[in-house]
């Protein structure tokens, strides 16, 4: 019997739909035309101009610092929360805890942004990178916790008991047994947190203060009043960096396994 070609066609169509916009963006970043109206010749002018835009680089640096910091802290908190949720009795308090952790996943971003801003304003906190960092940790913790919790569902705690039986202390058990086993869950959670943090716009917009404009805020403002081709060039650089990072991390995990 001949195999149906439908799956292949659907796959190609979906891939096309996913990647065509990105290809257009990359191609246009080398277009000399400011308005992307047809090809006006190959040009590196947008990349050259990008070098002379300190504001954009500062925004990129802000985004990176916040994303790395928020990921690090939310991985610690999120893993701890997931462990507590999984390990201890499903009491009423624990159910409440679950609700609290789950909440940021369902609360609309705009609501979270404005309520955080009002809380910061009421507490007299000076807005800046610090407030963005706190806001990002707030929602990243939930994503990490949920991802790690899923990994814990099929975690065999007998392994832990066995380790302790063999004389391993809490620290050793944690480092040599528990963490390595749930590392994929933590890593997935960390990647998710990083991605969410680095492209968050709505919440960040509200809690950002003087001197803490992040890349998404900058880009959004530039789409309307700045130079779109600069954004194309910047996105192309970001894409290259991301792809390189993914390839390297896959290489590393393959060589370990």
């Amino acid at each position, binding site marked *: 019997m001949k195999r149906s070609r439908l799956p292949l066609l659907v796959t190609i169509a979906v891939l096309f739909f996913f990647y065509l916009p990105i290809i257009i963006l990359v191609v246009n970043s080398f277009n000399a*035309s*400011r*308005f*992307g*109206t*047809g090809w*006006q010749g190959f040009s590196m002018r947008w990349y050259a101009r990008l070098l*002379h835009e*300190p*504001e954009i680089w500062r925004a990129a640096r802000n985004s990176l*610092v*916040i994303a*790395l*910091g*928020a*990921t*690090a*802290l939310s*991985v*610690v908190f999120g893993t701890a929360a997931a462990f507590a949720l999984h390990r201890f009795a499903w009491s009423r308090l624990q159910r409440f805890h679950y609700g609290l952790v789950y909440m940021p996943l369902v609360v609309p971003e705009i609501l979270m942004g*404005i309520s955080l*801003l*009002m809380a*910061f*304003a*009421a507490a007299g906190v*000076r*807005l*800046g*990178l*610090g407030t963005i*960092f706190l806001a990002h940790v707030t929602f990243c913790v939930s994503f990490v916790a949920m991802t790690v919790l899923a990994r814990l569902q099929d975690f065999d705690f007998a392994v832990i008991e066995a380790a302790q039986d063999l004389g391993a202390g809490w620290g050793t058990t944690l*480092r040599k047994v528990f*963490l390595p086993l749930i590392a994929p869950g933590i890593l997935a959670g960390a990647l998710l947190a990083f991605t969410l943090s680095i492209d968050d716009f709505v919440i960040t*917009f*509200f809690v*950002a*203060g*003087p*001197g*803490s*404009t992040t890349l998404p*805020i*900058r880009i*959004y*403002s*530039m*789409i*309307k*009043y*700045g*130079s779109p081709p600069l954004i194309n060039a910047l996105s192309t650089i970001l894409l290259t960096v991301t792809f390189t990072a993914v390839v390297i991390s896959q290489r590393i995990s393959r060589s370990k396994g």
Partner: protein
Amino acid sequence: MKKRPILALLVLAAAASFVSCGRSTPVLNIYTWAEYFKPDIIRRFERENGCRVVIDTFDSNEAMYAKLKAGASGYDLLTPSSYMVSLMSSQEMLQPLDHGLLPNLTHVDPEYLKIAIDKTMHHSVPYMIVNTGLAYLKSKVADFVPSWSMFDRADLKGRMTLLNDMRETIGAGLKSLGYSLNSTDPRELRQAKEVVLRWRAHIAKFENEQYKNGIASGEFLLVHSYSGDILQVQRENPDVAFAIPREGTAISVDDLVIPKTAGEVRLAHAFINFLHDPRTAAENTVFLSYLCPNKEGYALLSAELRNNPAVFMNPELRARSEIFADLGADNALYVKIWDEIKSAK
């Protein structure tokens, strides 16, 4: 485990960057649109005043307003549009300006102050002016007349766009009938609605951004547009021309204001004064393709810019044009009509 030292480092790095460095030099925090000051000018101001300028950007007046209203502070200078300035002023969010610190205000073009909302510059100083008008392709649009009635032309059907902006487009309808674009008379507004509905049948769509690409590529032949945008398009497609309709049009002004919560009030005044130095004003005008209303600065501009109708309006037309005012509760009248226009079949 190697992971933990790295994590600790990251947390440290994040923490370190929160501690702001250099407390000795004063910092001026500006909250504005993207690319709204020529970078060289900012550097010059920093040098002359021994300070640091930090620029953050917003993308709409409403978003900026919502943020400040919810309690965000720390900004020393804002550049909202005039209608937002009157709203913020009525909510007592702005400081009165100290004219003693602003000697350069004598250079501000009095012709623009005549039509301005804050005529005495009590709490705001005009920074940049944009006119709304008609851009068209010279080679494709036969016998162009500078009039809003162009949108009735059947031969351009499907090749025109109107702005997707309630006040601009209803305002164009009102102007075409000879009414004020700040009218709150229900009868006049009803007539304007009929006009815009008639135009709607001829246009391709309501569009605020893509018309630039559309007119540059020849997809659209006539677009309702902002002067600054069209000046940029003209550098790429010289066939594009810009005209102000003879019935008059909307003038948008972004003002320089100091919020009540500002910390560096003196420095903010110094910056406003610096922007109205004729040389700075002229440089910014060239950089932005908008017009900084600075009388002495005009003389420093090239003849080409001075004769461009998109930058310098003919005085007669300017007298017929208006700045959008904040309508307060009457805004609802416009919202209702705009909904009817957008949802009409």
